[in-house]
């Protein structure tokens, strides 16, 4: 019996070996990689270690890069029409760009922030703000598509946005411009004391990510520039930098630079949340768009919301304090422990660091230095943790490496300065090319930064690349920050004008990145789920073409019975269920862009034929060896003709 059991054990052992030989062993990194080239070189076929999501600024879109290679992978259309995919042109995505001003096909996208759980990046969504026509968008990090856009009423220049609290309870949007609330016809020079600055708290549903504007705090008429959440011990607070506490309404570059100190506003949002939950606040008439794109219907819908809850902060004692901060602070950053709030006075050489603990003590000890519009101003000395004597000029933004160091950009002296949190000593400085704005360390504004690289995003390019006329892309530099000294390792052009960026380890997203949409989950109203369902239907002067695509033909591909003056909707369903096999569609003379239809997806392209004739359409994406054959014809007859609808394939 003993021999028998050995035999069986051996056989089972063999079985396990056979079934487990698929696991590839991890490749090791070279131990002595030293040159900059080796540090950024990602060999063909290999992949980057980090994702970087760079805002596109005035492109209105979000770009996806790899670190350390600096290679761009995708441009995600958010606030701008994007003919490459048909975003904002297709019937399904037009509602995404609806606002209370009507269809606004562009915006200025500034500050991406990845969703967090317990203060750490969780990789579910990335939030971005539209600065010009105030909007917040949520982009899925499994489809890398815009899923939701909410307009922010009573706001103008949505700049201190779109930063999230450490469990993604809220995405926060502060106004840069103060405006009359509600908007009304009044003299501009009555600004002072009359205009308001709205700080908006938009809740995020934990399961769906669905956004809802819960309340707006109506602040004094300053400019709310940037913001960041408290984390760890300071969770529950939000900090906003301000400028123009002078409340000037003209020639701000002079008039708003008179006060020696402006403020960082500390908002105890948990107190206000509780106040609103208990019925506090004022319901105010409003009109703002909430646009939602459904991954299964592949369709966006726009709903106008007519009411918003506003809160006068002076009605919520203990909810708001001002921290005096020198020289028109721009960046307002919180270190990974949540202990320090860094205010970068952009007209100064120094960086001001406030202590959260000291702030709490000052509040408890009522160490006030007067008040502004009923909001207590804390004594500067009572909240100050330290000053970084940088030797640079024009500090803007700070990120953290999780090892006790902070990195601040200096626009005027064009450099990144590394300093120690706590000792406030400068450790290192490196020039940037040229005039850096934001910088980004993956997770650098969370409890857990990944302090290997910092990306500096510059405002001025000049001679960094081959000349391309007066207009050129902006430049960015990557520094290795794993050692004591920063090392410049790469320089690459970026698209649009990146402001802030967000990054995360690649493996946080790669497993969840969708390859296809499932055809059996396609719930589009006009989907053509099997080629047998392909058809053409006329409803008055509207013609709906239910069309399917598979390598390498459209079904149907010959259509007759269309008349001049018809509105022809091509509802195209891509029947492929294979990774990276989109089909495109375009029609001659069509006053819109092509559409690019992903596997399993349905998209609709509107064509209003104006000329009699036989007009071709074709697939715009080189889908297969017979891509050139993927084409068809539509016969357009005069408006008064009586040719019946007919359609065919292969006849």
């Amino acid at each position: 019996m003993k021999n028998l059991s050995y035999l069986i054990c051996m056989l089972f052992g063999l079985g396990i070996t056979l079934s487990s030989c698929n696991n590839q062993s991890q490749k090791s990194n070279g131990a002595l990689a030293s040159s900059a080239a080796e540090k950024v070189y990602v060999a063909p076929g290999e992949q980057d270690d980090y994702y970087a999501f760079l805002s596109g600024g005035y492109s209105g879109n979000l770009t996806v890069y790899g670190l350390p290679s600096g290679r761009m992978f995708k441009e995600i259309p958010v606030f701008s029409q994007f003919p490459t995919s048909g975003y904002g042109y297709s019937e399904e995505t037009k509602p995404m760009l609806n606002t209370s001003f009507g269809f606004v096909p562009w915006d200025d996208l500034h500050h991406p922030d990845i969703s967090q759980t317990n203060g750490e990046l969780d990789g579910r969504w990335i939030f971005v703000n539209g600065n010009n026509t105030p909007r917040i968008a949520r982009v899925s990090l499994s489809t890398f598509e815009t899923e939701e856009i909410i307009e922010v009423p009573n706001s103008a220049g949505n700049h201190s946005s779109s930063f999230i609290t450490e469990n993604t309870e809220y995405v926060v949007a502060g106004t840069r411009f103060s405006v009359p609330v509600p908007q009304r016809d009044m003299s501009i020079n009555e600004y002072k004391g009359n205009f308001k600055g709205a700080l908006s708290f938009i809740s995020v549903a934990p399961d769906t990510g669905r956004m809802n504007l819960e309340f707006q705090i109506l602040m004094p008429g300053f400019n709310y520039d940037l913001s960041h959440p408290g984390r760890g011990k300071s969770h529950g607070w939000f900090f906003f930098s301000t400028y123009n506490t002078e409340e000037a309404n003209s020639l701000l570059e002079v008039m708003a630079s008179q006060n020696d100190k402006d403020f960082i506003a500390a908002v105890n949002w948990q107190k206000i949340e509780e106040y609103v939950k208990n019925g506090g606040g004022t319901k105010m008439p409003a009109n703002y768009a909430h646009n939602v794109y459904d991954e299964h219907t592949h369709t966006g819908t726009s709903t106008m919301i007519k009411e918003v809850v506003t809160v006068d902060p002076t009605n919520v004692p203990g909810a708001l304090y001002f921290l005096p901060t020198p020289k028109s602070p721009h960046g307002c950053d919180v270190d990974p422990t949540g202990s320090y709030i860094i205010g970068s006075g952009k007209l100064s050489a120094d960086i001001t660091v406030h202590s959260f603990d000291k702030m709490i003590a000052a509040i408890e000890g009522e160490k006030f230095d007067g008040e502004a519009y009923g909001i207590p101003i804390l004594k500067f000395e009572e909240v100050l943790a330290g000053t970084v004597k940088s030797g640079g000029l024009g500090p803007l933004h700070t990120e953290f490496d999780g090892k006790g160091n902070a990195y601040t950009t200096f626009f005027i002296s064009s450099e990144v300065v590394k300093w120690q949190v706590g000792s406030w000593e400068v450790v290192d400085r490196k020039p940037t090319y040229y005039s850096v704005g934001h910088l980004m360390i993956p997770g650098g504004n969370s409890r857990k930064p990944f302090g290997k690289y910092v990306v500096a995003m510059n405002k001025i390019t000049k001679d960094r690349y081959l000349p391309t006329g007066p207009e050129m892309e902006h430049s960015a530099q990557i520094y290795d920050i794993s050692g004591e000294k920063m090392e410049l390792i790469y320089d690459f052009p970026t698209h649009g004008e990146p402001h802030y960026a967000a990054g995360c380890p690649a493996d946080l997203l790669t497993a969840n990145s969708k390859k296809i949409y499932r055809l059996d989950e396609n719930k589009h109203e006009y989907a053509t789920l099997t080629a047998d369902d392909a058809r053409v239907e006329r409803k008055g002067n509207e013609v709906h073409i239910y069309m399917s695509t598979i390598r390498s033909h459209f079904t149907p591909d010959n259509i007759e019975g269309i008349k001049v003056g018809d509105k022809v909707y091509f509802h195209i369903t891509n029947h492929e269920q294979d990774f990276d096999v989109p089909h495109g569609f375009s029609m001659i003379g069509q006053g819109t862009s092509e559409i690019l239809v992903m596997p399993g997806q349905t998209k609709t392209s509107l064509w209003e034929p104006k000329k009699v004739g036989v007009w071709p359409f074709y697939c715009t994406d080189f889908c297969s060896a017979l891509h050139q054959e993927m084409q068809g014809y539509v016969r357009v007859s005069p408006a008064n003709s009586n040719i019946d609808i007919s359609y065919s394939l292969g006849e």
Partner: protein
Amino acid sequence: MKKASILMIIGPLFLLGLYVFPLWNIMLGAPQYPEPLGMNIFIDGIKGVSEFDIQNIDGLNHYIGMRTLPKPEDMWEFSTFPTIIGGMIALGVLIGLLGYFKVFNYKWFIGWFILMSILGVLGMYDFNAWMVDYGTNLDPNAIMKLTNPDGTPMSYKPPLLGHTKMLNFDVTSLPSTGAWMMFTGMLLTVVAFFVGKKAWQPKSNTFSTKPIKVKANDK
């Protein structure tokens, strides 16, 4: 003989794996398919290694005029094989039990193995015949009609065993877990035969011409 009989009972039970695991696996890799397409051939049908592989293989095959891959109802084999395998498992276990109770001798064990081997070879022959038909019986209106250098139409028959280059695809065909379990089970019945043979004590002396060494630790 008890030890041999137990092996004879366990051996055929390994064939139960064929109801859970694929018998054969064919993988198709190409430059544009870094994650290869693949099909797992079970005794009751063909499934994709990834969910949409069958659809995608069919999609590619339509260019060269191959028919779509058969569904379970398209081939009699997929309903017959499970019955035959079930019968053979029952028969094997029965032989083992009868051996245990000394009704049958060890020669029955090799008998089962031979029968199973014949059925296996027939199955392989049938499988290969299907692949020949599938790979050569092409649509005369195929989009791409490719010929060998000698002018004969190109065949797309996958290899029964091993690797071949087919246009841009590397095709690899190998036994899968189910087949390995079957081979293991069949091997056990051969072991059972030899163990049984060694342990065999003839009832009469006339039966034996030579003295046989007997291991007595099995009573």
